[in-house]
């Protein structure tokens, strides 16, 4: 469990990126932080592995204040996946994946074995192991990023817009892969995105942030959709327009679900019929 208690971050130039942020991120669940650009998502994420140090309040991992932990050691047991993968361009795929285990002193043969099995896990062909990152597609690079994040078998996986730089089809693919993976491995995942659809798809808990890391609403996707806490939230999730505002239209004896723009979204079936 990760807990933020009254956490604030003021950068050296006086910017208050995060103000009085409190949140519990339960173990083995996916918490998604979603908000527009500059709302403080990355800053909050980075306070967990001390890439950024809080200037106010406490961040705790399983009851341990991260401020008391050595940053380098802390980072080596937390997976971090970032936008555009952040791979080391001068290391081959396999070496990228096994960087942290190697830093932790794992022998090369064992590490390579581990790296190859992680490539299987994230759906990368083993034949890509000896390539350099620039020889991969964007989606493949992201998979390497995820594999690297998993390499130390961390309890915590931090993901900062990991699928932001790939096209929608590849993104859907990666999202599905992540959900499958999470069912198997059950990490404590903190996932940052500014795509509300992605947030609702992946999040057990979704946290909608306004500027300064102010929590506009948090809850399960269903809770938020059913009861947006404010106009800001309603606007952000697009509750009253487009695809989210669905209504039912009878046609040829069947009930068709139509979205706010009048496009047919699907057919409503009885629960019994669906099973």
């Amino acid at each position: 469990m990760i807990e933020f208690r009254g956490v604030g971050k003021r950068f050296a130039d006086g910017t208050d990126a995060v103000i009085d942020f409190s949140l519990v991120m339960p173990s083995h669940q996916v918490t998604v932080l979603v908000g527009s650009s500059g709302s403080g998502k990355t800053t909050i994420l980075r306070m967990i592995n001390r890439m950024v140090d809080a200037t106010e309040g406490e961040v705790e991992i399983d009851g341990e204040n991260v401020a008391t932990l050595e940053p380098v050691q802390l980072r080596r047991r937390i997976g971090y996946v970032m936008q555009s993968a952040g791979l080391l361009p001068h290391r081959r795929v396999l070496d990228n994946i096994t960087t942290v285990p190697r830093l932790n002193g794992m022998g090369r043969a064992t590490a390579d074995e581990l790296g190859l099995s992680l490539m299987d896990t994230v759906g990368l062909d083993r034949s890509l192991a000896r390539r350099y990152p620039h020889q991969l597609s964007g989606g493949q690079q992201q998979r390497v990023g995820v594999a690297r994040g998993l390499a130390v078998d961390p309890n915590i996986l931090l993901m900062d817009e990991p699928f932001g730089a790939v096209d929608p089809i590849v993104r859907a693919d990666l999202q599905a892969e992540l959900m499958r993976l999470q069912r198997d491995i059950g990490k404590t995942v903190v996932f940052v995105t500014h795509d509300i659809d992605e947030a609702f798809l992946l999040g057990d808990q979704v946290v909608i942030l306004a500027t300064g890391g102010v929590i506009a609403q948090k809850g399960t996707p269903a809770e938020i959709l059913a009861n947006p806490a404010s106009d800001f939230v309603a606007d952000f999730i697009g509750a009253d327009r487009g695809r989210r505002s669905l209504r039912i239209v009878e046609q040829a004896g069947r009930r068709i679900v139509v979205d706010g723009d009048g496009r047919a979204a699907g057919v409503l079936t009885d629960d019994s019929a669906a099973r």
Partner: protein
Amino acid sequence: MNWVAANLDLIVELTLTHARLSLLPILIGFVIAVPLGAFAWRFRWARGLTLTVVGLLYTIPSLALFVLLPPIIGISFLSELNVTIALSIYAVALMTRSATEALESVDPDVRGAAAAMGYSGWGRFWAVDLPLAGPVLLAGLRVVSVSTVSLVTVGVLVGSRNLGYLFLNGLQRGIVAEIATGIVMTVVIAVVFDLLLALAGRLVMPWTRGADGGRTRRAARRIALTEGPA
């Protein structure tokens, strides 16, 4: 051509000496400039001063340096050491800024990712910053190499025997072939050094081969060209 045929031994001897005289300053310049450039890159407060001082070194006329050095460090005016030290100073002057810019060219996202993986300061410098600065470092080194090979010729004015001797002697005696030979062989050395450096770069930095590597190299060359020798 008669002159060339009659003086083959001399040409070979001078070419080899010239290459040898060029090599040491290039190496010394690199070895001193990289830590200096890293220092200027790492500590913002030191940057302006360091780069200005080394930049000024390059503006000292070479002849003045050959004449000034011996009394300052107590060596013989005519010694080979004099030329080596003077040219090393120019190499440092050229290379330091390249080194700083090379380290600055490293993608901040990659550095951030390395930090997030738990690289500590020095570990990251050796494993990430320095190798990724490689292409721009190499471009800088190639400029230094060409510049040094051509500067060595000035050494004849303080008694160093190298290809510059052919210019001087050819000029005094009015032998065009001799002057031309001096120029051609100097260019040959410069080209050979450059090819060797490029080859070494491909061996040491295999990731720069291929599509993306081409882009990195072009960027590196652009940086190198904007600060070529005056």
